[in-house]
């Protein structure tokens, strides 16, 4: 089942929403610099902050979508999460796993390709945004609380790999 997309605009403010949640367009320059900012603020927990904020924000959107569209199976929920990822222009995601965790691949990635377009390849993975997105999909799909899953990027397009891979682990 394809993700149902309802784009609306507030006539007074011109703010845009997707499925009832406010959204706004930016470019790869913005996300590349936000990613660089959190890397530079590693001593303040920058990457973790970005990851957690994405997980929290996406979890609300996914929970709302599952409820409104009566999605109860893990497969349907994961598919919706993957399609949200693409709808936001963040790339192509492939999920495999179960309640205990899994493996996720990106065959294209806005963050990695954007970073590479801006600065060229990097020496290590930097896709903290997608780590949070994946954790949100897993916790939402399996009805677990936030921070139930840890996601680690193990291979990355930005380092020259053909795909990015992420390992998802249930945190008990």
């Amino acid at each position: 089942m394809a993700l149902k997309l309802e784009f609306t605009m507030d006539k007074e403010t011109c703010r845009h929403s997707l499925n009832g949640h406010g959204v706004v367009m930016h470019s790869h320059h913005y996300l590349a610099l936000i990613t660089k900012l959190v890397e530079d603020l590693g001593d303040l927990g920058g990457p973790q902050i970005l990851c957690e904020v994405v997980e929290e924000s996406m979890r609300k959107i996914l929970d709302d979508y599952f409820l409104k569209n009566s999605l109860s199976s893990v497969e349907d929920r994961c598919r919706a999460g993957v399609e949200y990822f693409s709808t936001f222009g963040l790339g192509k995601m492939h999920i495999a796993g179960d309640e205990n965790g899994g493996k996720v691949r990106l065959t294209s990635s806005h963050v990695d390709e954007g970073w590479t377009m801006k600065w060229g390849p990097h020496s290590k993975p930097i896709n903290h945004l997608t780590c949070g997105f994946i954790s949100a999909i897993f916790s939402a799909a399996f009805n677990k609380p936030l921070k139930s899953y840890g996601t680690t990027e193990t291979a990355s397009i930005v380092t020259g790999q053909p795909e990015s891979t992420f390992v998802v682990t249930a945190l008990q």
Partner: protein
Amino acid sequence: MTVMRDTVVKALAKVQVQSDENGLIPEYEVLVNLLPVSLLNTFSERIMAAAPPERKAEVEAGLVRAAYECGYHTGCGIITSEIFSDVVMPMVTEDEKDILRGAYAAFTAWGWAKSGIVQLKEAEKMTIRAFDYYEADSGGQGLRGFMLRGLSQAFFDLAYAEPYPDGMDTYICHQTKGLEVGDSYGEFVVVKK
């Protein structure tokens, strides 16, 4: 004729971005993303909150810089795009001034900020007022229009500094009023650096 703001807003508001088979949105010479406003605002507040007082200016500068570079590069793609040429350029009679008027109509139409130019001294100073912008909802203390600061600086650079891509960092934008601090509008002033 000069740029008729309402006409531009109506026409540009209909533009919808759509991802391709790779889940990417290549538009305006960049990769576009569409992100939840709550995510962006919460991130700004958390990262600001994590910084000790002596480093808040560094974090704030990083957030403005992200908006600025996004605005400078994407802005160039926007004002040279087919949609801008079709909708805005036929109304342009005052060159840079009208292109800036068209740009703020685009900011409004695309939900960045319901904003417009209230004072413009060519190549010297521009004052913007915004009556709605998503960062006003961020819940933080103090002025929070990081995005509109960066975008305003970027578009003034595109209009009056050296031609793209050599005109970066010629001007700077300061926020002087904010909905988020109880003012009736946000005000942004661009001047030479």
